[in-house]
């Protein structure tokens, strides 16, 4: 075990993947000499050469499209999208090609592409630098989508994503890049929990609080705060958004009967909607109250100085917890 930041844990994950498999290539803007704007690829071009760690022209469709071609040739491209808000020019290649080529080719062609996306808000960044586009990818059949919340998962799940024969959209919460944690780098990725599994981040009995990414930290804070108030919250870190590990989720909900889902992304047709719909479908008879979502508002990501009013913080989560517990809350008396 070593104490590493998430950034370093990811860097070590990439290093290991490059070392283990000569077919692994890194593509992106500024990932070479600079090591990426977040330094996640720091030192990798020096170590593995410019043929394997490739600074590309400034064009995301180009990066994704050439990654598809490399996959046709048997490579395993790991693409870095510089910021969440810059993935959209690559959307066509992701949705129509990356996600569909295995299906289209009758299973003859694999698309073992990992799309790394520094992700979400809370870092006071400029416009387009704090987006939470995960629902777009979750809704896209043919992709796997994961979101990490701690250095250990970041390291192991990145290696698992790269090793997967399927395309994986890999969300890295920028807000946690510098958060530290214990990492076991010696782990055999086959022995580690598969990236498709959720994790009970904290056990509890009154309310199931479901989330992913940096919001796991906020959820855990909320759980601690609630404890003082006599409320026991079970926090579930989904880790995988597609597929969702409903076994873990439903076993918690069957226990608590009350559900809050939180994420930074907008609410309308977001991942939270999917979780609430599926949990309701699977656990209806166990539910004591309507599951509640605590999400970013349905607005474009606001200017940095206002993001704190957009991001679902501890107080908004606790307010929702009060709601599912039928205790006084901000919606008391408000008709829906």
């Amino acid at each position, binding site marked *: 075990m070593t104490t590493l930041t998430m950034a370093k844990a990811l860097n070590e994950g990439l290093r290991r993947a490059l070392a283990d498999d000569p077919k692994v290539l890194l593509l992106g803007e500024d990932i070479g000499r600079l090591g990426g704007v977040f330094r996640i690829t720091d030192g990798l071009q020096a170590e593995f050469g410019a043929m394997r760690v490739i600074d590309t022209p400034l064009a995301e469709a180009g990066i994704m499209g050439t990654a*598809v071609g490399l996959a046709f040739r048997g490579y395993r491209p790991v693409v870095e999208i510089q910021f969440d808000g810059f993935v959209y020019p690559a959307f066509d290649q992701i949705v129509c090609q990356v996600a569909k080529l295995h*299906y289209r080719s009758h299973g003859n*062609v694999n698309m073992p592409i990992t799309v790394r996306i520094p992700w979400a808000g809370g870092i006071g960044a400029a416009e387009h630098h704090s987006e939470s586009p995960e629902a777009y990818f979750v809704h896209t*059949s043919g992709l796997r989508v994961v979101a990490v919340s701690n250095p250990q998962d970041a390291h192991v799940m990145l290696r698992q994503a790269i090793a997967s024969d399927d395309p994986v959209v890999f969300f890295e919460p920028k807000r946690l890049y510098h958060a530290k944690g214990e990492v076991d780098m010696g782990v055999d990725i086959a022995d580690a929990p598969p990236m498709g599994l959720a994790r009970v981040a904290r056990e509890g009995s009154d309310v199931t609080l479901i989330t992913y990414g940096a919001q796991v930290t906020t959820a855990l804070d909320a759980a601690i705060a609630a404890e003082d108030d006599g409320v026991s919250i079970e926090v579930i870190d989904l880790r995988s958004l597609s597929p969702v590990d409903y076994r873990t989720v439903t076993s918690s909900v069957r226990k608590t009967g009350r559900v809050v889902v939180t994420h930074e992304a907008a609410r309308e047709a977001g991942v939270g909607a999917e979780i609430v719909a599926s949990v309701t479908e699977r656990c209806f008879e166990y539910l004591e109250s309507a599951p509640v979502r605590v999400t970013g508002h349905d607005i474009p990501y606001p200017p940095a100085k206002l993001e704190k009013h957009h991001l679902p913080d501890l107080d908004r989560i606790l307010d929702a917890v009060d709601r599912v517990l039928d205790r006084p809350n901000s919606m008391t008396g408000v008709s829906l």
Partner: protein
Amino acid sequence: MAHTLTPTADPAVDVEDVARLLTEDGERVADRELDPWVADVDTTALQSLYRDMVLVRRVDTEGVALQRQGQLGLWAPCLGQEATQIGTARALRSDDFVFPSYRETGVIHVRGASPADLVLTWRGEEHSTYDPAAINTAPLQIIIGAQALHAVGYAMGIQRDGTDQVAAAYFGDGATSQGDVNEAMVFASSFRAPVVFVCTNNQWAISEPVTVQAKYPIAGRAPGFGIPSMRIDGNDVLASMAAMRWALGHARRGEGPAFIEAVTYRMGPHTTSDDPTRYRDPEELERWRRRDPLLRVERLLRSLDAFDDEFAADVAADADRLGSEVRAACLGAVSRAPIGVFDHVYAEPHAGLDEQREHFAAYLDGFAGAEGTSR
């Protein structure tokens, strides 16, 4: 470089402003650039090129007929484009890798697509049938221009493997407007990737004449990206083969990408769903009929005493055979069982989808009991 650069004065529509080796009358003319590349093409080789063109035309006719008869959902005729397709495809090595668009029937035929491969996609049985690795050809691409980037990526892979293979991307005149095709030129140039871009300028993108996409010849764009290009008569199978060999040679020698604009004509509708009488002058079609790519090879062969009744009959028999095989493959097609829609979404197990498949199976089973539908 001059500091003030002015575009060429030639308009995009000048179809005579091309390099060629074979006139409409089947006369072999000289071209300093192209000649060396087809020095080895003797009468037998010419006959073989001709044969392939006839075969493709036969498949195309069959495709249209099958669609009319309700056996195919759609067909995208390549009538008129046989010289471009056969000439360029025959220049490829079998270990080169091709990324075709939907209209490249001739190209995939040369690559080794089976009769079934030529029609089952259009029948709606499968999105694609052949194994790309088996014939070094990607599935047909419908998203305009997307495959140009794939070819560049594939070529970057070739580079990394250190072989002398080449990747080739086929796309239309309309596709040159897409960001993807332009980004493909940027990436290809930046990485000096061994890729050849074949732009089939068939004068139309559905109902839009090429002048909507380009006011100046498309071949003129590539050099701005640092890519040498050639503008050829795409109805001339010899020029098509020569240009492709030039381009492949360039890429194979490690000198980077090359670009070909093959000026040809889509003699049929865009697809069987299209009605070109709404937008194009019948006289234009007549003019192009006189430029028919098959006719001029036939004339050349006749002038070489290499086209007699026996040869014609033999080619026709070959074509008929392929036509029947295509028809048989189409009529004999068996659709996947309902539950098969779940096949090959993922390469590895996916809990969510696996559960969905199970539920759908249960649903279908319920039916099987009730109404005899099998899965």
